């Protein structure tokens, strides 16, 4: 229901306004209750285990994969993503290098075989497009275009 260190009043106000619900074709507060950015109603079970075997399987299907990390995030730190991608990727096809947006270093990236790329976004927190919107969009565009 709440998130430490974040002010969520904008989403709380906007998403619970009847005119907004109506405009978005969403059920009203009286029908489905108040919107919360994160809910406590779920009783959630993590039953899928580690994602690593699944990533390996999917990479075998020829899918294009980008794993990125805002490098200021302490919640899911980049060190974990860097480690598992390194172990899964094995063979480096494009070594570590900086990547740039408007001549500024936006982060660092490495590409492994089987279309797996790991990239950091320098100075970004947990929610990368929020902290570094321009860099996030640039990264997204390059990924979609199949560019480094």
């Amino acid at each position, binding site marked *: 229901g709440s998130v430490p260190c974040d*002010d969520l009043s904008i989403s709380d106000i906007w998403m619970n306004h009847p005119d907004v619900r109506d405009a978005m074709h969403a059920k009203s507060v009286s029908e489905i209750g108040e919107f919360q950015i994160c809910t406590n109603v779920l009783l959630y079970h*993590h039953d899928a285990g580690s994602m690593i075997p699944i990533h390996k*399987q999917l990479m075998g299907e020829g899918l294009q994969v980008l794993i990125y990390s805002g490098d200021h995030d*302490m*919640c899911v730190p980049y060190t974990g993503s860097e*480690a598992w991608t390194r172990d899964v990727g094995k063979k480096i096809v494009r070594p570590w290098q900086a990547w740039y947006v408007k001549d500024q270093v936006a982060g660092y990236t490495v590409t492994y075989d089987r279309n797996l790329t790991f990239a950091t976004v320098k100075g970004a927190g947990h*929610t*990368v497009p929020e902290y570094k919107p321009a860099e996030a969009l640039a990264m997204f565009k390059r990924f979609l275009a199949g560019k480094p």
Partner: protein
Amino acid sequence: GEDSAEVKSLPGFDGEFGSKHFGGYIAVDEKHGRNLYYYFATSERDPDTDPVILWLNGGPGCSSFDGFIYELGPFLFEAASSKSELPKLKRNPYAWNKVANVVFLDSPAGVGLSYSMTPTDYNTSDLKTAKDTHTFLLAFFTKYRKFAKNPFFIAGESYAGIYVPTLAREVVQGLRQGVEPKINLKGYLIGNGCTDNVYDGNALVPFVYGMGLIDSDLHDELEKVCKKNYWQVTSPKCVELLDQMDEDLKDLNMYDILEPCYHPDSHTYGGGSRSRGREETSGMEGGAGGRGEEGGNKFERKSLKRPASLVQFGDGGGDGGEEKEREEREEREEREKEEGNGHAEEEKGKPEEKGEREEVTGMTSLGGRVMKLLPGGLLRLGSQGAAAADAGEQEPKARERSEEARLEGQKTREGGAGVEVEERRGEGGTTGRGIAKKGRLPESFLQLGQERR
């Protein structure tokens, strides 16, 4: 169907949309009335050929409107001067639908605007969520048939590090079975995603050391004592060192270590706390500034209360002075050490439950688990119980060993020096002696842990 779902205007936005937007529900289980809400912002470039992206926020339990409002959505949201007014919206120059057709999906049912008519549906899981989301996709591409041929990518962050691959696997399996409509899955992207208990659980110590948040002595000792294994801990000394590290990190904003932490009740905060929504707000209590405008002393944060949204103040709760509390806690822990056990058990069911205040810290641990809060949702990163969660990939013997280790770790952690999860209660005043007992974590997350047990 498309026409009736079109969103033609949104309160707070005066201009014209840069492309067509749609919103509505798709039933993933008619019988139980399980309905998922989506918002579909088509590409502002070339919707007919640009890729379709499904965006999922994490939690578990967090709405993808986090992505829509605060991250990559078509609009920037600017807080109104008063909280009774609607935010002002303007076009977001960095919206991802500049170059792609983006579908924001609230999943699983119960999250955001999604719902079920059958409350037991809110008892859910990774695998069930993946199946439902696949069902959603098939219905979505049936409804928006012309987009089915476009390249399709799945994207998300945080706990969506679980949602994304599990869904991708469902889609791949569906394609193999010839399920229609054929989804043109090309790839996926995950930001700061959860992946694996071992990798993620061992990531924090090297991160905080690399960022200079803990000193070399503590880091070296952690490596030596814990043997670089921080997620499945059985050594009391390692537990103690991890607690010491937690103490060093507890006042940081875990989502961005250099950002201030927003405290809704921080009247005394000299600088500006960061408000979500890229436009920094001015009507917020606690300062008008935002990123880069922090005028006050950062270290003042140390003396602040915890975020009000996370603290339930009862009688006697209030601004008790964290310094004094800390001293008391240390004194209490010292006493516990001497007594050789935590007093969680003996405090259970005591009558002084009223007037307590419950604290939820950003990062804490319980019974051998090292846990972290994801934005609004909660995740245990390294957990003894996680071994059981991964049981599907383990041999029975390994599973037994994991369970033994978990129980041993739990014993160690609960009986050792560290009492990680505390609930403090003021006794007859604002600075009353704190009493440690289990229960700092929100209920739903505790339930998650219990389920694993």
